[in-house]
Structure formats: C-alpha cells, structure tokens
C-alpha cells in the first residue's frame, strides 16, 4: 500500500486530502505515481504538473525520479503559505 497526501488546493482538486493506493512494482518512481493519479482526473494531472508543486516521500522532499517502496507516504505539496 502507498499512502498519498494532497495538501492545500491539491486536496480540493483531488477530491480528498489522503488516499491509499495498492503498491505495485510498476509504480517505480514518484513521477509514475503522479501520472497514474492524473490519469483519471485531468484537472489533477495539470495541477500536479505545475512546476511549483513539490513532492515528499516519508516527509523528505525528493526529486520526481525518486523510487517508491511498499508502505511509503507520498505527499504532494503546493507552494507553502504559512507565517
């Protein structure tokens, strides 16, 4: 299983703040996961492809070619707006 988190407006576009996805070996990288999540939702595909969106795996910022493992937590992060 992969745990997927959408923060900020990405949650609105995804229709949820978190979801689980069965892990399979074909989801080799975060980029592959992003494409799979966008496949059924064109607005989400566009939003996740925006250059300012960042991704964290197990709470560490990573590049889009980061590989995934069973049990990983993947968070999609729009530009932060705290403070």
């Amino acid at each position: 299983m992969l745990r997927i988190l959408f923060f900020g407006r990405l949650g609105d576009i995804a229709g949820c703040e978190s979801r689980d996805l069965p892990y399979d070996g074909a989801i080799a990288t975060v980029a592959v996961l992003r494409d799979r999540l966008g496949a059924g939702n064109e607005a989400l595909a566009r939003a996740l492809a925006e250059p300012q969106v960042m991704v964290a795996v197990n709470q560490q910022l990573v590049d889009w070619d980061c590989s995934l493992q069973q049990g990983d937590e993947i968070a999609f992060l729009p530009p932060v707006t705290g403070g």
Partner: protein
Amino acid sequence: MARIQIQTADFDIQAEHDRLRAAGGVGAVVLFTGLVRDFNRDQAAGAPPVDTLSLQHYPGMTERLLAEIVTEAKARWGIRDVTVIHRVGDLAPGDQIVLVGVSAAHRQEAFAAAEFLMDYLKTRATFWKRVGAAGRQQWVDMHDVDRAAASRWDGDE
C-alpha cells in the same frame, strides 16, 4: 536552546519574552508576531474582506522543517535562544498566528536571525492558508515578495 511549537491555542507574548530573556548574556530580544489581517495583499479593489482563516499543515514534516530552519539560523548567527510558534486550525482577523523570537548578545544578530526565520518559514515550512470572504473559501497563493525575501539569504550558503 530552542522552543518550537505548532498549536491551535493562542500564545502569550509576555511569557515568551520572559523565556527568551532568561538565557545568559542576552543584550537584545527581537519578537515578531504575525496577525491575521482583514485584507489580502493582492486583493482586488472592492473585494469582500476576509472573515475566516484556516491553517493546514503537514504534521511531522512541519516540525522537522522548523527544526532545520532554527538549526540553520543558529549556525549563521551567534544567538542565545530561539522560539518559533505557529498556530494551526481556524483563526479570525486580528488573531495572532505566528511568533518568532530571538535573543542574542547584540541587536544585529537578533534582528537578522528573526528576519531569516520568518523568510524561511514563509517559503519552506509546510503550512497552507485558506481564507473565507463572504462565504467563499479560497487557498492563498504564495506571495512573490516572500519568495524574493527568502532568496536574499541564499548568497552566503
């Protein structure tokens, strides 16, 4: 020393000031407080005023990022103590939302570290604001001015 808190509750200025002042050899305390304003920087003329603000964050990751930012500030400046408190959840205009406090021997270090912490907190820490105005909810965009403010510290990394 450092105190890092993410909380729904309000914070107490006097208590935080007392704590920062108690570190040894302190000649300067800088306290920054951010408040929920009743307007937005880029708000169109005539737009309804903001009446609610809600803060989301990424539990676990936020704490870790704030600790990193504080560690970086302590490495750059000779400071005695640091406090970062950020509220989450539902807030109203006028509410206190964030506190950054620094105590140091001299004012230059205290001011620089406090500004650095705020700039990095605004551009790195995993918080997201949603505002409501006249019943309509909207996620806030990152301000270009904040990105520019944070980038001024990159030169000497």
